C-alpha cells in the first residue's frame, strides 16, 4: 500500500463532489426546460488494489470513489404511456374542435339558423293565402325564398371551406411528421455514436423524447428504444424511423368536399397506404372522411344538399299543382343546377306575383288553396324542416360525444404527463439538498486531504530530530 494512497482517495472524493455539484447546477439551470429529465451522478466505491502472492499485507481500505457516469432519471414506460395518451387525445381533440366549429356555424337553434328561415318561408305562404291580391305578400314570399337559398348556399360554403382548411392541415401535418422523423433519425445517429464512445447523451435523448412525443401527438404509432440506444418509431406497423433512417409520408386524395374519394396517406417510397387511426392526422382524416364512412363535415354538406333537394321537390310538386292568377298552370318554384351540389345550385324561378300559382286549377282568381297547401309543406315527417331538425339533432349528439371523448382522453394525457413529470421533473428542494450534501462532501474531502498532509508532514519533516 502506497504512502500516498490516502491522498489519492481524498482527491477522488473532491472530484466526485465537484462533478456532483456540476450536475446539480445543470439540473437547476434546466428546471423549466421543456422535456428535460433530471440527472444524477452515479459513483461507486473503488475497491482495494488486488493483492497477488501468498503474503497478505493486512487489511487495506478502498481507493476512494469513481464517477461512473451521469444517469438520466427517466422512465421509458411512463414516456410510452405519455405517447399513447397523446395519440388518443390528439385524435379526439382534433375531431371535437372540427365538429364544434361546424356546429357554431349552424347557428341553431337561433333566429339566424336555417330552421328559422324555413319557418319564415312557410309563414310567408300563409300571409299570401290570406291576401292573394297583395303584391306585398307575394314580394315577401319571393324574398324569403331568396333568403332561404342564400342561407342554404352559405351554410354549404362554410362547411366546404372548413373541409378545405382541414385538407390543407393534412398536408401540413404530414410535412411536420416528415421533418420530425428526419430529426429523430439524426439524433439517433448522434446518440448511437455517443453511447458507443462512452459519452453521455442525456440531453440528446431528452430532445429525441420531445420529438417522439410530437410525432405521437400528430400520428400516433409506437416507439421503442433499441439496444444501441436508437429509437424506432412505427406507424401502422411499419417503421417511420429505424436507426438512422427515416421514411416519409405523403398525402393524396380529393381537395374539396364535393369531390368523390377519400383523403389518404401513403409511404412515399413504397407507395402503399398507411392507416393512420390516431393522433391529429388520424383525427383530421376522420373529419375529412366521406359521408358514408361517417365524416361529420361531408354528412353536414350532404344534409344541406338533402334539405335543398327535398325543399325543391316538394315545393315544385305542389306549385305545379296550382294555377296562377291568369289561370295558367304553375311552373317550378325552385330550380336546381344540373351539376354541382344542390345547396349551391338552388334558385328561385318566379320573378313576380303573376308567376305564383296560388289558386287551385279552375277556381276563382283570388283563390289561395294552393298557397295554403304550400304553407303546410313544412309540417310532418319527410318535410325539409324535419330533415334539417333530424340532422341538427344527430350532429349535436355526435359533437357532444366527440367533446366528451376529447375531455376524457385529454385528462388521461394529463395524468400520464403528471406521472412522467413526477419522475423526470427537477425539484428545487431536492437539488438544494443535493447541493448542500455535495458541498459538505467536498469540504470533508478537503479536510481529509489536509489531515493526511499534516500527518505526512510530521513523518517527513519532524521525524528523527529528537534532542537536536
Amino acid at each position, binding site marked *: 500500500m502506497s504512502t500516498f494512497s490516502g491522498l489519492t482517495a481524498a482527491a477522488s472524493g473532491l472530484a466526485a463532489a465537484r462533478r456532483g455539484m456540476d450536475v446539480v447546477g445543470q439540473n437547476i439551470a434546466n428546471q423549466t426546460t421543456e422535456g428535460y429529465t433530471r440527472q444524477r451522478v452515479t459513483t461507486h466505491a473503488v475497491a482495494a488494489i488486488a493483492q497477488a502472492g501468498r503474503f497478505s499485507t493486512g487489511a487495506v481500505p478502498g481507493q476512494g470513489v469513481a464517477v461512473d457516469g451521469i444517469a438520466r432519471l427517466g422512465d421509458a414506460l411512463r414516456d410510452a404511456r405519455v405517447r399513447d395518451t397523446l395519440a388518443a387525445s390528439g385524435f379526439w381533440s382534433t375531431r371535437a374542435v372540427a365538429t364544434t366549429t361546424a356546429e357554431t356555424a349552424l347557428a341553431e337553434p337561433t333566429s339566424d339558423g336555417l330552421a*328559422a328561415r324555413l319557418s*319564415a318561408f312557410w309563414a310567408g305562404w*300563409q300571409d299570401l293565402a290570406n*291576401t292573394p291580391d297583395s303584391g306585398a305578400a307575394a314580394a315577401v314570399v319571393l324574398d324569403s325564398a331568396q333568403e332561404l337559398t342564400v342561407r342554404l348556399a352559405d351554410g354549404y360554403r362554410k362547411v366546404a371551406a372548413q373541409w378545405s382548411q382541414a385538407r390543407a392541415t393534412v398536408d401540413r401535418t404530414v410535412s411536420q411528421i416528415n421533418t420530425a422523423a428526419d430529426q429523430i433519425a439524426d439524433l439517433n445517429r448522434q446518440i448511437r455514436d455517443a453511447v458507443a464512445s462512452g459519452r453521455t447523451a442525456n440531453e440528446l435523448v431528452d430532445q429525441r423524447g420531445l420529438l417522439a412525443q410530437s410525432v405521437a401527438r400528430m400520428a400516433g404509432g409506437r416507439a421503442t428504444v433499441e439496444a444501441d440506444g436508437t429509437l424506432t418509431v412505427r406507424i401502422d406497423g411499419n417503421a417511420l424511423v429505424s436507426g438512422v433512417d427515416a421514411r416519409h409520408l405523403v398525402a393524396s386524395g380529393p381537395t374539396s368536399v364535393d369531390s368523390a374519394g377519400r383523403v389518404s396517406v401513403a409511404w412515399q417510397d413504397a407507395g402503399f397506404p398507411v392507416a393512420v387511426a390516431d393522433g391529429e392526422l388520424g383525427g383530421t382524416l376522420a373529419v375529412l372522411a366521406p359521408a358514408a364512412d361517417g365524416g361529420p363535415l361531408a354528412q353536414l354538406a350532404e344534409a344541406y344538399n338533402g334539405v335543398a333537394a327535398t325543399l325543391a321537390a316538394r315545393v315544385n310538386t305542389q306549385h305545379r299543382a296550382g294555377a296562377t292568377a291568369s289561370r295558367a298552370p304553375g311552373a317550378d318554384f325552385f330550380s336546381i343546377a344540373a351539376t354541382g351540389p344542390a345547396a349551391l345550385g338552388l334558385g328561385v324561378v318566379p320573378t313576380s306575383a303573376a308567376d305564383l300559382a296560388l289558386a287551385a286549377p279552375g*277556381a*276563382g282568381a283570388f*283563390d289561395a288553396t294552393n298557397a295554403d297547401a304550400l304553407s303546410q309543406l313544412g309540417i310532418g315527417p319527410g318535410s325539409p324542416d324535419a330533415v334539417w331538425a333530424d340532422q341538427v*339533432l344527430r350532429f*349535436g349528439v355526435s359533437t357532444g360525444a366527440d367533446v366528451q371523448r376529447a375531455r376524457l382522453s385529454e385528462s388521461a394525457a394529463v395524468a400520464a404527463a403528471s406521472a412522467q413529470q413526477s419522475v423526470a421533473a427537477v*425539484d428545487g428542494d431536492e437539488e438544494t439538498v443535493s447541493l448542500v450534501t455535495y458541498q459538505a462532501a467536498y469540504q470533508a474531502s478537503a479536510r481529509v486531504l489536509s489531515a493526511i498532509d499534516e500527518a505526512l508532514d510530521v513523518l517527513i519533516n519532524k521525524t528523527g530530530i529528537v534532542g537536536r
Partner: protein
Amino acid sequence: MISRVTASAMTQSAMRHLQANLTQLSRLQEQATSQRAFTNPSDDPAAAATALQVHAQQQRNDQYARNIDDGMAWVTTVDSAISSSTSLLRRARDLTVQGANDGALDSTAKESIAVELEGIRDELLAQANTSLLGRSVFAGTSDAGVAFDAAFGYTGAPGSQVVRRVSDGVTVRVDADGSAVFGTGAGSVFALLDSVVADLRSGTNVGSHLTAIDQRMTAMLGAQGAVGARQSQIERAKEAAVDNSVSLEARRAAVEDVDSVEVLVRLQAQELVYRSALAVTGRVLQPSLMDFLR
C-alpha cells in the same frame, strides 16, 4: 416511490385547476348574461331538438293568430252587411204590405212607396257589394270587383270559398255566398224589389210578392246564422291560439332559458371556489427550501 412530488408538477396542476375553474366560471357567466341555458346543440341535443320544434310551432301559432284576426275582419264585415240587408228587407216588406192596400192609397202615395223601395234596392245592392281591403266579401274568390253588376248578375266564382287556416289542419270559411244571400239575376232580391216597384206604378196589387220577400228573408237569416256560427268558431280558435302561445312560450322558456336565481347562486359559488383556489395556489407555490437555508 409511487408519486414523487415536484414544485413544477404542483405549479402545473395548480394552473390546470385554475384553468378548469375559470372555464366553469366563464360558462356560468355566459349563461347569466345571455340568459340561455345552452349555446350549441351539443350542450344538450334533446333540448335543442325540442327548441327547434317549439320555435317552428310558435311561428305557426303566430301566423294562425294573424290569420284569425284577418278572418275575424271578414266574418264581422259579412255579418254586418247581412244584418243591414235583413233590416232593409224588413223595411221593404213593410212598404210592400203598405202598398198592397189598394183601396186606401192613391197613386201619389204608391209612387212615394215605389221611390223609397228603389232607394232600398240601391242600398241593398251597395250592401251586397260590400268590400274589405278591396275584396268583395260576397264574391268568393272572384276578382270582378263587385259581387253584383248593374243587371244584378252575380259575378262571383260559383261554389268558391274564402277560407282562413286557424290551426294545423283546421280551416274556416270566412265569406258568404252572395248568390245564396241575395239571389242572382231575375231571381235576386234586387229584381224582386224592382218588380214590386213596377207593380206599384202599374197599379197591380203587390201583395203577391210578400211570399217571395219572406223566402228571401229566410235565406238571408239562414246565411247570417251560418256566418254567426263560423264567427264563434273563429273566436274559439283565437282563444286556443292565445292559450297555445302561452303554453308554447312556457315550454320554450323551460327548455332554452336559464333560471336566473339558480345561475346567480351557482355563479357566486363558482367565484368563491375560484378565489379560494387562487389564494391557496398563492400560498402553496411560494415556499422552497432556499427560504430556510441560512
